[in-house]
């Protein structure tokens, strides 16, 4: 279905016909809830497996209005499912449990649940769940409208003015002034990307041609005198609105200013990657990307040690920087361990460099978008360029392992770890420690070792995307679902990509890693302070089988993509291309 609930043809009968997906491993409850919801005239789909439910949701995008899920499920933690849904589909999720402890409820809310019901559930409680769907729709509209309004008034204002969009920063604990401003601007731009007049999130895609026209118009008018109206007139594109041009212009300006900064550094470092890295403290994405690029470009045949990465952790300003350092380091180390893939890496590195380079310019443009896109493209390119078919299955199955490198960072880098802690703490308020000891002990067990390994790896991985996304939304609450929920119109493309990425995350099965991934998520859900991760990482590292390492290394860079694998999404390429600022 095209639209959901509110603006669908069923609007007149709303809330009747609300499409609910119920996930609960208890068949008795499933039956009861189904009956209750049917009595409310809702359209019910049930599933006793979280994974199955996720598949259903992915298959039928826009096929559901709301998800109700139990917290305790054997195959996947309810909170993890909650996050997935929030990230990929941005649907309201209601949690259920027989346990009504405050900490659990808090956890649910933190992960983005819009409600938490206690079992036994009364029908009257279910009758009103449509309010969550309705509320979301309203916020969407409000967001889009407010964005447009602001766009009209202020194009290049500072971020503080734009903080009127309370929803962007509600609950956000990150007081990172400059970053916030950039974030706001980019967010606004992304928002405005959408068709202003429609409540749907159709975005204006700035194709290469369109951008060329734009640049030509700007140059014609003269950069100093340029204004959205003039550009629009010159471009002579009927369907383009002034708002679209305005936001694009804003981004273009930012891009140009950044290019100027880069130009000086470019020569000395042979690439903008490093320059971007060092000059960036507000754009977490680029920083994150840069280390990777650095590896490619600097060290032959290896994703070598990115010098720039070392710079990052030293940057006190941005926790993102620290995270980047953290993220990139493991790759380096991993690479060092396995050298056989160096050639293949090299082969692709140049292609990756190019794509990365151009994307980097774009990085700040739709901040989150570009990162995600970049990652996507990167991931896509690598499989195609470097690895033959035989690698593909590995790629998918290695999902969990791809994140092992992330763990390594935590291990030898106590400082990045500690810097991660604040982030973690904000994200997971409840105590995290309880998970660690069990993992440590588990590590001794051979069989469980891998699981624990994966768990931890995935744990950090799971967090990474959040960190990653949070990089761009510093003022947003850390929990991705919350972010998604509240910034509905933001980065539609990126969310879409995330969808497919996350979608591939799960489908990439075929090995035990699949379940391990889930365990990792579960582990993460339990909360994990980075110090604990660090400790466990040590053990984990020791537990890593060498063959696993060998398998993993070719795909280490994948870790940076956070497993946003979208080999199936060919449409990513066009999007990325179109997103490029081709000077």
């Amino acid at each position: 279905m095209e639209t959901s609930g509110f603006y669908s043809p069923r609007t007149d009968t709303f809330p009747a016909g609300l499409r609910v997906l119920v996930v609960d491993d208890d068949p008795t409850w499933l039956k009861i809830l189904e009956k209750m919801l049917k009595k409310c005239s809702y359209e019910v789909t049930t599933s006793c497996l979280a994974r199955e439910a996720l598949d259903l949701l992915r298959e039928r995008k826009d096929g559901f209005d709301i998800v109700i899920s139990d917290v305790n499920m054997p195959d996947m933690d309810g909170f993890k499912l909650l996050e997935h849904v929030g990230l990929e589909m941005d649907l309201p999720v209601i949690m259920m449990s027989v346990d009504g402890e405050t900490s659990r409820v808090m956890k649910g809310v933190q992960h983005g649940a819009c409600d938490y019901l206690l079992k036994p559930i009364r029908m009257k409680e279910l009758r009103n769940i449509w309010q969550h769907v309705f509320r979301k729709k309203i916020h969407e509209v409000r967001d889009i409208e407010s964005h447009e309004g602001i766009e009209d008034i202020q194009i290049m204002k500072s971020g503080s003015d734009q903080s009127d969009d309370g929803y962007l920063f509600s609950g956000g604990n990150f007081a990172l002034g400059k970053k916030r401003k950039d974030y706001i601007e980019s967010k606004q731009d992304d928002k405005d990307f959408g068709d202003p007049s429609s409540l749907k999130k159709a975005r204006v895609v700035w194709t290469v041609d369109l951008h060329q026209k734009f640049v030509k118009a700007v140059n014609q008018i003269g950069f100093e005198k340029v204004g959205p109206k003039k550009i629009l007139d010159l471009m002579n594109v009927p369907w383009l609105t002034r708002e679209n041009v305005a936001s694009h212009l804003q981004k273009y300006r930012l891009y140009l200013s950044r290019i100027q900064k880069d130009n000086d550094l470019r020569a000395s470092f042979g690439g903008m990657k490093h320059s971007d890295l060092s000059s960036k403290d507000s754009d977490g994405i680029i920083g994150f990307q840069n280390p990777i690029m650095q590896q490619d470009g600097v060290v032959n045949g290896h994703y070598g040690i990115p010098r720039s990465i070392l710079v990052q952790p030293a940057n006190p300003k941005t926790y993102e920087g620290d995270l980047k350092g953290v993220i990139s380091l493991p790759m380096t180390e991993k690479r060092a361990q396995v050298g056989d893939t160096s050639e293949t890496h090299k082969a692709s590195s140049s292609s990756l460099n190019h794509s990365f380079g151009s994307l980097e310019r774009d990085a700040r443009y739709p901040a989150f978008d570009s990162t995600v896109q970049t990652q996507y493209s990167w991931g896509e390119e690598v499989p195609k360029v470097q690895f033959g078919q035989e690698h593909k299955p590995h790629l998918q199955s290695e999902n969990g392992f791809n994140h092992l490198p992330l763990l390594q960072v935590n291990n030898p880098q106590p400082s990045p770890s500690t810097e991660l802690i604040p982030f973690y703490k904000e994200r997971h308020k409840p105590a995290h420690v309880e998970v660690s000891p069990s993992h440590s002990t588990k590590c001794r067990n051979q069989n469980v070792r891998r699981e624990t390994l994966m768990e931890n790896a995935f744990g950090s991985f799971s967090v990474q995307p959040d960190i990653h996304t949070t990089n761009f939304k510093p003022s947003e609450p850390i929990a991705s679902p919350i972010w998604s929920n509240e910034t509905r119109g933001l980065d539609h493309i990126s969310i879409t990509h995330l969808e497919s990425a996350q979608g591939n995350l799960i489908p990439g099965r075929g090995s035990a890693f699949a379940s391990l991934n889930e365990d990792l998520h579960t582990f993460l859900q339990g909360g994990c302070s980075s110090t604990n991760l660090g400790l466990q990482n040590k053990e984990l590292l020791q537990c890593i089988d060498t063959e696993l390492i060998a398998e993993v290394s070719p795909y280490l860079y994948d870790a940076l993509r956070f497993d946003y694998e979208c080999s199936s999404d060919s449409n990513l390429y066009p999007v990325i291309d179109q997103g490029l600022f081709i000077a």
Partner: protein
Amino acid sequence: MERNQLHRQVANMRKSLFDQGFLDEQFIQLEELQDDANPNFVEEVVTLYYRDSTRLILNIEQALEKSPLDFTKLDSLMHQFKGSSSSIGAKKVKLECTQFKEYCKAANGEGCKRTFQQVKKEYGTLKKKIEVYFQVDGRRWLGGVAISGGIALRQWRRINIRRDGTGKGASSRSGVDWTGGIEVVRI
């Protein structure tokens, strides 16, 4: 006439189940969900519960036999069972489950084992009572006719025995019109 008595019997049984704390409001919720589309809804749900919970009980039993006891796992298993029991409103069972979880938190193995025996006991008691209830209730909406008269008779007699607390079927006739009208007919 017989039907009225049948109705009364059902009502009494039901009331006692609630009064004695075997069932709570959730059971009423289930009853309210029952409609023409799902005329046997409550019975289906309860049957489903007893089928699924057998597995859960087995898991807990196995976990209790391990040494040392994994209290986290026990707590998690019991959590599942408790959630399931809450679905039909099994009040006493749920209380014992809560007690069990308390012992888990306190890492009291003996307490857990003891409480689990209580859980099973309540579980079994409720099962029997509910079975009877459904039989009687079933007779109500079936009109008591669908089943072969012989069987219906036997069931009637058994019910009567239970209700009156008498050991023999014959003497209980006075309390109830056990002929049940049509049910008496043997097939």
